[in-house]
């Protein structure tokens, strides 16, 4: 037997077979003076000896023999975790541990990390299949080392080895035990931009406390982009850091993720000198290893520590592309473009019909399911463009007559399936869905209803005789009837009044009272006006962070009326949130500070004063369009006899307008149902946290519904899901850095157009007509980015109701993903503001501060002047 334990500084690159890749790299860095925390390695030889002593060979050999791998893995893990380490090994480990603690006191905690011994295994470890344990004290040290070794036989690791032809009997694992750095600030640094691949930039992400929160994607970190030459900061973004992972807690404590104090959330974590220090050490790592590095680092008491350095594997790696032809599911993507958490996807797939699939955290539609229903001779590219953009790229392709019977049958079936629902929706009063709130409360209060059952009950499985108001998702689907009415309206206008402006049909469909998203904007404006009336309130909102301001106002007598109005606002709109189709997103009623943040932006933009010109403009524009249409129709034969054409036009416009309103309003309610599902998930999570089966807040969103049920039922425990959660968090963070492709397996023409130079203008779809010239402001998060000035052009990746206040201030809106029916389009039309949607990559190609000309009618936005300075 070789040495069972090595000091970290004795491990060299030549020791990969004994110490594993991680330890070998850290050891090499430590011996060359890099500030690596001290530690030791329990070698792979010790692991093999331990396995031999437990006589695991027959069980390990059985893994390749088939049968039930889950049962065999569970048995292997049980025997390893419960096995007794040999006396000499225990002695060597405890001695090394004691020398690590010497001079630091007994309170020092360690990180126990697996260090795989072969290149393939190392990649597996990177995928989160092997164990890592923090906050380990002397009492739990041996147990956690055994857990690391047991993780060699997690189902995922075994499956990975089987797939890659690695012999299970040949594997062993070294374990690195290192002093945990009590980090004040920590993060990761990439010596090449991992998203763009640029080698001229260093990207640094940092947050308070331990870096695990960043690596796992639990917090949005501060981000610094540094030029490799000269190390000047090119770009920096301070995020609202709501959570941190503590580096100083008692070993074995249940909760590691805590809220960041309000006054530190928006404070920059790194000074310019710190950024430089991180960049310099990262470049030294790159120089040492000869390839771009992904470096984990920390600052403790002002000292820099290097925690890990490994190659950036994503730089030249092709992402796995699924087989088949898929198109991004736009109704979800236009609400937000970030990847969904696994639980959200898992639950959303329940009510969706076959043909939908989650790829890289986004929902995609399988084109093979759609193609038989399209009676046209059309290429995949054109079909994808038509489905995504809502219209064929170039004229109508020729008919495919053989497909017609199938299509007609499908249309007839669709008509029959939704016929009653559509007939029930006709002519109902505006408040017909208000009763849904009571149904939500009943479902919420029933402890027998779990998250999945709540979703189905509130979305698609009504009781046998249920008011249509309790079926907002069905109302939402049925209101797609907007499209044929809009088509008829456009056709009539083209035929009878060909000289009319091209946006006449859109204008006739705007200015509808009672659109709830628009009313929410008005309520916020009233709230802002109330805040302005009480100088103390306005000052608190302007000068303090949102959460702190709210806390201050609770004790302020002059804020009583404002707070009462805020409560009234939350009672109606509290189920809404930024990224509301994501279950992980906190709703406003849980976190009213988010509303304060919106209000603050609103006040800063000085938009709470005076009446509401935007909505009036929209109604006026519709009236003007109606007059114009009547004048254009007047010379037509028989038009003087009661205006038959005008009546038909008005009828079609009214129908289209009503369906549009129903679509937006029904969304207001089915999102309310989704909020109930979130509450159910939080209740389950709270139970699991209490029982110790989950350790961190929000971990539940990284499990599948069946896994949550298995945890509740005791079929799974924390040890079974810990690695899965970590792996999925890592994956989520990686997906978030990748822009979602609109298609897989299909090259869209649109994508090719998007690569065109911005000088020619960026093309998009008109969702609300008009033209406006103004300064562009790119906003990625409405609660975090700088406020919009009145008249500026809002440039956004997507919008949802949390963005509505910005529409009250903006002069025009340009959105990356959207459609005529999307939130951006509907609200922009109600506010009479030009809006261009589906402008590919606009948040990257249009810089903040540039003067832009938004020609929504022409479907183009042009940069007229670059930003000054």
């Amino acid at each position, binding site marked *: 037997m070789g040495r069972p334990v090595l000091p970290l500084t004795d491990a060299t690159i030549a020791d990969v077979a004994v110490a594993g890749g991680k330890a070998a790299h850290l050891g090499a860095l430590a011996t060359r003076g890099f500030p690596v925390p001290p530690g030791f390695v329990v070698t792979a030889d010790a692991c093999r000896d331990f396995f031999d002593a437990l006589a695991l060979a027959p069980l390990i050999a059985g893994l390749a023999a088939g049968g039930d791998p889950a049962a065999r893995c569970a048995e292997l893990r049980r025997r390893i975790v419960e096995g007794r380490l040999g006396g000499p090994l225990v002695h060597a480990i405890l001695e090394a541990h004691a020398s690590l603690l010497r001079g630091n006191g007994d309170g020092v905690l360690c990180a126990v990390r697996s260090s795989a011994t072969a290149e393939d295994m190392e990649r597996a470890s990177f995928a989160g299949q092997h164990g890592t344990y923090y906050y380990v004290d002397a009492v739990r040290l041996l147990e956690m080392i055994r857990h690391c070794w047991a993780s060699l036989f997690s189902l995922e690791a075994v499956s990975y080895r089987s797939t890659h032809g690695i012999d299970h009997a040949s594997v062993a694992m070294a374990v690195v035990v290192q002093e945990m750095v009590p980090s004040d600030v920590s993060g990761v640094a990439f010596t090449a931009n991992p998203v763009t691949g640029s080698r001229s930039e260093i990207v640094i992400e940092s947050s308070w406390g331990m870096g695990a929160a960043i690596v796992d994607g639990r917090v949005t970190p501060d981000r610094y982009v540094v030029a490799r030459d000269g190390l000047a900061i090119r770009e920096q973004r301070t995020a609202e850091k709501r959570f941190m992972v503590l580096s100083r807690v008692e070993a074995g404590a249940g909760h590691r993720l805590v809220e960041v104090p309000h006054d530190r959330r928006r404070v920059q974590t790194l000074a310019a000198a710190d950024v430089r220090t991180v960049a310099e050490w990262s470049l030294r790592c790159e120089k040492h290893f000869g390839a771009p590095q992904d470096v984990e680092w920390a600052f403790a008491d002002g000292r820099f520590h290097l925690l890990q350095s490994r190659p950036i594997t994503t730089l030249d790696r092709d992402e796995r592309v699924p087989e088949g032809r898929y198109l991004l599911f736009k109704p979800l993507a236009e609400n937000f473009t970030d990847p969904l958490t696994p639980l959200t996807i898992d639950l959303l797939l*329940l*009510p969706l019909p076959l043909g939908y699939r989650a790829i890289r955290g986004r929902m995609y539609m399988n084109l093979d399911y759609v193609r038989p229903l399209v009676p046209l001779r059309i290429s995949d590219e054109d079909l994808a463009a038509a489905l995504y953009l809502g219209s064929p790229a170039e004229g109508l392709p020729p008919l495919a007559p053989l497909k017609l019977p199938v299509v007609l049958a499908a249309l007839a079936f669709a008509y*029959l*399936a939704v*016929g*009653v629902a559509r*007939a*029930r929706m*006709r002519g*109902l*009063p505006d408040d*017909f869905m*208000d*009763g849904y709130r009571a149904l939500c409360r009943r479902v919420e209060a029933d402890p027998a209803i779990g998250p*999945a*059952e709540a979703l*189905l009950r509130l979305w*698609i*499985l009504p009781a*046998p*005789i*249920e*008011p*249509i*108001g309790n079926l907002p998702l069905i109302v939402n689907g049925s209101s797609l009837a907007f499209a044929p009415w809009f088509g008829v309206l456009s056709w009539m206008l083209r035929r009878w009044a060909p000289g009319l402006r091209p946006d006449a049909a859109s204008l006739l469909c705007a200015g509808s009272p009672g659109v709830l998203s628009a009313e929410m904007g008005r309520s916020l404006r009233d709230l802002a006006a109330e805040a302005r009336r009480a100088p103390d309130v306005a000052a608190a909102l302007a000068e303090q962070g949102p959460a702190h301001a709210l806390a201050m106002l609770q004790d302020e007598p002059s804020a009583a009326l404002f707070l009462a109005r805020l409560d009234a606002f939350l009672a109606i709109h509290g189920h809404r949130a930024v990224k509301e189709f994501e279950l992980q997103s906190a709703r406003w009623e849980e976190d009213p500070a988010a509303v304060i943040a919106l209000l603050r932006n609103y006040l800063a933009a000085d938009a709470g004063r005076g009446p509401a010109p935007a909505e009036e403009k929209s109604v006026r524009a519709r009236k003007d369009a109606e007059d114009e249409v009547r004048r254009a129709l007047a010379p037509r034969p028989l038009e003087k006899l009661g205006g038959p054409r005008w009546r038909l036009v008005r009828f079609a416009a009214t129908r289209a307008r009503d369906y549009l309103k129903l679509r937006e309003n029904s969304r207001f309610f089915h999102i309310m149902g989704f909020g109930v599902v979130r509450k159910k998930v939080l209740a389950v999570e709270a139970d699991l946290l209490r029982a110790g089966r989950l350790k961190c807040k929000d971990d539940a969103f990284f499990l599948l*519904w*069946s896994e949550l*049920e*298995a945890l509740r*039922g005791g*079929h799974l425990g924390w040890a079974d899901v810990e690695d899965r959660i970590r792996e999925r968090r890592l994956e989520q963070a990686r997906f978030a850095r990748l822009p979602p492709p609109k298609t897989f397996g299909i090259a869209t023409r649109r994508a090719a157009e998007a690569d065109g130079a911005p000088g020619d203008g960026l093309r998009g779809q008109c969702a609300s007509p008009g033209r406006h010239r103004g300064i562009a402001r790119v906003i990625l998060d409405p609660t975090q980015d700088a406020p919009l000035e009145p008249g500026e052009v809002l440039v956004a990746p997507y919008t949802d109701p949390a963005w509505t206040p910005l529409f009250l201030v903006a002069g025009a809106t340009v959105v990356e993903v959207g459609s005529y029916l999307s939130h951006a389009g509907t609200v922009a039309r109600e506010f009479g503001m030009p809006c261009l949607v589906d402008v590919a990559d606009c948040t990257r190609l249009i810089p903040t501060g540039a003067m832009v000309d938004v020609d929504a009618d022409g479907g183009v936005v042009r940069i007229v002047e670059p930003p000054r300075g």
Partner: protein
Amino acid sequence: MVSLASAGLFAIGVYVSIRVLAALYRIADLWYRIGTDWPRVARGIVAWGGAALAVALLAEDGRRAAFLCGLAGYAVLHVVLYVATRAYVLGRLRARRRDL
């Protein structure tokens, strides 16, 4: 020609069935304001129920069956779709449970 007229009456039967069902559902849909809106609800039921009755009475003997088939057939389809959707979705839920 006979079959075309029958097909037309069958389609009318389907359409009237949709409207009759919608009119009946309106009791539930407007229950929260039935005190004020009952005349409207009653009007809908009487109008579409009356229309169904009128067509059934006025149709020729040979074609009445087509209309009634459309009328009743759609009502059955409506119930079948409700039950089938429920069974399909709950089946998916049960399948997920089996994955535990």
